Structures are given as structure tokens and as C-alpha cells.
């Protein structure tokens, strides 16, 4: 892709995001015209409309954009790092760990902030455990050992989560646990987004700075080292950044699958595998995609549809279509 084409695509994606965000602000049970929404955004007009737009819809739209951008970026980073297009951001157990943390928080009747902190800590803790165990194994291909350890720790966290579910109060806690594990932005407030935003931005900046080296690491460990990359250190920084990004949004939204797996494929179709372009494009497409899905989740039925169910229902057929295209290289 030429530089001019890159700018055009970037401008088109930004414009599409703005249109989608504007449209999402119009959708909801409290009917508002575009004029009323615009007035509410500027702090004018009807007081009731102002509360709906600024306190309810705007935080939710912002959270959806942030969640989608975060999951898609982390997915793109992990697919490059593990040289595997079938990898998603939870490959190293971040979702399973965050799930266990949140479920424990609900079980211990912690306040919302406590549950979010427990989920964040659980996600970071699971990946840290994977890293330490994999480093101690020191046999064979380090990337493969890391993935296999991630599977093991993820399964262990899943078992622990099931144990807590068995012990939880079936009338009060169990529904809350189930709902959290399916993912939702229904209860999101500006106070939830405030701590997640800087963490996500920090992680994305690190991934952006390392964009070229992450490409080179995609050639495999030995080759990357022969090309002058300190592969072990770079892998650590990439995992830390992607985990920070994933754990902070998962703590707010619960477990939302498929986005980080599927969206990077769309990004590669648009701009190819070069990580410097793939990262921002995946973030933009992921943000728009999740905004659309979340708007559907809160508007297609009388009750909220959990996000994780919708992303799976859309992601799975799309992925089968990718498989059926059967193109080597997964572009």
C-alpha cells in the first residue's frame, strides 16, 4: 500500500468511527432526534435528554470503542508474536485469570471497584504465572512452551472458577457470576472507564513503539536474534503490553471473546501483515465492530443480550468463512 493510500484508509476509518458513534448515540429506548443529541452533547437543551446522552449513552459508546480497540490490538500483537493466526488475546490465560478474579470478588461480595480490581489482578497474575513457569521449563521452543503453559494455567483457572460457582449462592451470586463471564457493558459508568483508559493507551503506545521489531519477531526467535533483535526481552515487553491492555478492559466488561481473534484478520485483509499499519487499523476496526455489536446487544431485545454471546454468534461463522477461503497466509 502506498503512503497516500494509507492516509486515505486512515481518514475513512476515522470518519466511519465518528458516524457509527453518532448513530449509536441515537439508539435507545428514550427516543431522541439528532438535533437533541447534538444539543445534549454541547450541554444545552432538555435536561432529561442531557442525562440520557451524557450519563448513559456516551460512557457506553466510549467503553465499546475502548473495548473493541483494546481486544483487537492485543489480538494482532499476539498473532504476530506467536506466529499463528489462530491466537486470541486470552492465549496466555488473561481472560481465565480475570474471570477467576472477578468470580472470587463476586463470591466475597466485594464492591464493584473491588471486583474490577480482582479481575485486573487475576488477569495479570495468570499471565505472570505462565511466564514464570515457562521460563523455568527452559526446554524447546520458548514460544511453544509459553503457549502450552498458557493452556495449562487457563484450564486450572477455569477449574477454580467452576469450584467457586459451585460454592456460590445460587440465587444472588451465581446469576451475577454467569452474567460477568458472558461479558457486558450494561452497567458501565465514566468511573469504570477512567482507570482503564490510561492503561489501554499505555499498552497501545508500547506496542506502537515496538511495531517494527514485533514484525521481525514474527520470523521466529532464532532468525529475529540473527537479525539483531533481543528476542526474549522484546517478547516480554510485548506480552506485558498486550496483557495490560486486555486485563484492564476485561476487568470492566467481563469476558468478551472472538474480537481479538477475528478482527486482526480483517486488518490484514485491508493493509497486509506489516504490524506498523496492522495495529492502528485493527484498533479502529475493532472499535467500530464492538460499537455496532454492543449497540445491537442493547437494542435488539427487551432485555440486554450478553456481549460475549453476540460476538461468538457473529465471530464463529465469520471464522468458518475465513477457513473456507483456505488461503495460505491468512490475508
Amino acid at each position: 500500500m502506498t503512503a497516500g493510500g494509507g492516509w486515505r484508509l486512515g481518514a475513512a476509518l476515522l470518519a466511519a468511527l465518528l458516524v457509527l458513534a453518532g448513530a449509536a448515540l441515537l439508539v435507545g429506548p428514550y427516543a431522541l432526534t439528532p438535533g437533541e443529541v447534538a444539543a445534549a452533547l454541547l450541554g444545552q437543551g432538555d435536561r432529561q435528554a442531557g442525562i440520557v446522552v451524557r450519563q448513559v449513552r456516551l460512557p457506553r459508546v466510549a467503553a465499546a470503542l475502548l473495548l473493541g480497540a483494546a481486544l483487537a490490538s492485543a489480538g494482532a500483537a499476539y498473532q504476530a508474536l506467536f506466529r499463528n493466526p489462530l491466537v486470541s488475546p486470552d492465549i496466555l490465560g488473561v481472560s481465565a485469570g480475570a474471570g477467576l478474579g472477578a468470580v472470587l470478588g463476586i463470591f466475597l461480595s466485594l464492591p464493584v471497584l473491588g471486583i474490577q480490581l480482582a479481575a485486573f489482578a487475576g488477569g495479570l497474575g495468570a499471565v505472570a504465572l505462565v511466564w514464570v513457569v515457562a521460563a523455568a521449563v527452559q526446554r524447546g521452543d520458548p514460544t511453544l512452551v509459553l503457549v502450552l503453559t498458557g493452556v495449562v494455567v487457563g484450564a486450572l483457572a477455569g477449574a477454580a472458577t467452576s469450584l467457586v460457582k459451585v460454592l456460590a449462592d445460587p440465587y444472588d451470586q451465581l446469576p451475577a457470576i454467569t452474567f460477568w463471564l458472558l461479558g457486558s457493558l450494561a452497567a458501565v459508568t465514566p468511573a469504570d472507564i477512567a482507570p482503564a483508559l490510561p492503561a489501554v493507551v499505555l499498552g497501545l503506545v508500547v506496542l506502537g513503539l515496538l511495531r517494527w521489531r514485533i514484525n521481525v519477531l514474527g520470523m521466529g526467535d532464532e532468525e529475529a536474534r540473527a537479525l539483531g533483535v533481543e528476542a526474549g526481552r522484546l517478547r516480554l515487553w510485548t506480552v506485558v503490553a498486550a496483557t495490560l491492555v486486555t486485563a484492564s478492559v476485561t476487568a470492566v466488561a467481563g469476558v468478551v471473546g472472538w474480537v481479538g481473534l477475528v478482527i486482526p484478520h480483517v486488518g490484514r485483509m485491508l493493509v497486509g501483515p506489516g504490524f506498523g499499519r496492522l495495529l492502528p487499523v485493527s484498533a479502529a476496526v475493532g472499535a467500530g465492530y464492538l460499537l455496532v455489536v454492543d449497540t445491537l446487544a442493547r437494542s435488539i431485545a427487551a432485555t440486554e443480550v450478553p456481549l460475549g454471546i453476540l460476538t461468538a454468534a457473529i465471530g464463529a461463522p465469520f471464522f468458518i468463512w475465513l477457513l473456507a477461503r483456505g488461503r495460505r497466509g491468512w490475508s
Partner: protein
Amino acid sequence: MRLAARDLAIGHGGRAIGRGLSLAVGPGEILCLLGPNGCGKTTLFRTLLGLIPALGGTVTLGEAPLARLGRAAVARRIAYVPQAHAPPFPYAAREIVLMGRTARLGPFASPGAADHAAAAAALDRLGIAGLGGQDYTRLSGGQRQLVLIARALAQGAPLLVMDEPTASLDFGNRARVLAEIAALARAGAAEGRGVIFSTHDPEQAFALGAEVLLMQGGAIRARGRPEAALTAARLSEVYGVPITVERTESGRLVCAAPLGLRRGG
């Protein structure tokens, strides 16, 4: 810049599979590494590149001991051409070549105009400028090998290590790659690179007039000029089959193993 290994012990995980290995290669020289499968050629290469630690002895790049250099410093001195492979994602061939510039970039930088020019020049020099925009994963094995050589050129290192660069290539591409190896070493004294490559074809050593290192079971069996090192008796012993070395009417040396061999025959 001279690559020198002295009394090297090589192996994985602390278990030595080769000992007492010494070699040196400098500008304009070609060193041809021969030996049966599993004799330690690839492990030796990985040790020379610092990808695995030496279990004994020393490797020096110019004045500097390899063990004291960071990866970027090593990559500016010695470039590695692996066997042609396919990464999981469809990078353009030009992007693969650009990766050779990594050791010359800052930790957070991407290739700039000078790097793009170096990559284009490397592709041009190998006569494959037309492949630059194509999907690397869809190129033939021979084209990929040439792209990887271009990447090593873009790396700008005075030393090249090539792991069986002609394996899995057809007859024409094999000849092209060999010609490139000869040209790389002999591009004038100032620019001439030092090349170490491994091969399963002893005739390539004769054709290039390269120094020979014949390995067997982790040790060096013979070294020196190919005519002296690669005798029929020695090749037969190392490879375990009767091999003859014959001179054709045009003066070329060729190796042949009789057909209808059976184990121990």
C-alpha cells in the same frame, strides 16, 4: 572483519556434540562446510552466530569476542541466511528484505528512506527487483532463497553464514545461488565478504575453489584446498559409500557414487 573460532566445543543444553573445532574466514574468502547429516554443521553455525552459547573455546568477530556483543552488534558484523522458509503471514518480499536493516535501527524506529533504498539495491543486485512487491509466501523455493540472500546483503554485514543455501533448489536456481556466493566473496577486496556455507554437494567446493572443512561426528576430518581435502578415500569414509572423484575433459572435478548400493556394499 575476520570470524575466528578457536578450539570450540558445541552442543545443546550442556551436552557437547562436537569438540576442538577451529576455523577462520575473512574478506573475500569462502569456507565450505561438508559432512553427513547430524555431524553438527547447523549446531556449529548457531554457535558461530551466538544463537546458542559455546560450551568451550572462543569465537571472535574482528577484535571483539562474540560472547560480549549484543544481538544488534553481532547482526551488524555477521548475517545469517537460513534455509528458505515461509512465515505464517503474507509479507511482501520487500518487507522481508527490509527486516535485514533492523540492526541499524533504533529500538523504536521503523525503516526510513535510506533503509528502503538499501533493500531496493539488494534486490536489484540479485536481479530480483521485480519480486519486491510480491507475496513472499507465494514465491518458489529458489526465489525465496534469493530474497533471503538479499536480506543478508541489506544487513550490510561483512560476514555471511549460509545454511545449505542450495538445498531444495532446482538445478538452475542452484547454479544461480552458487554464482552469487562466488560474486559476494569476490566483489573486489574492499567490498568482498567472507562467506561460510554448508552443503551436501562436494562438487560445489571444487566449483567455487573454496576452502573446505569436512566434518564427521562433531570433529573436523579434513581441511584445506578442496583438491587435497576431498579425496575419494576420505569422502568414501565420511559418507559411508564408495565415492570416486574424477576429472572431466574440461578439467572440472566431479564426484560420483555407483548406483545399486546396499548398506555395507
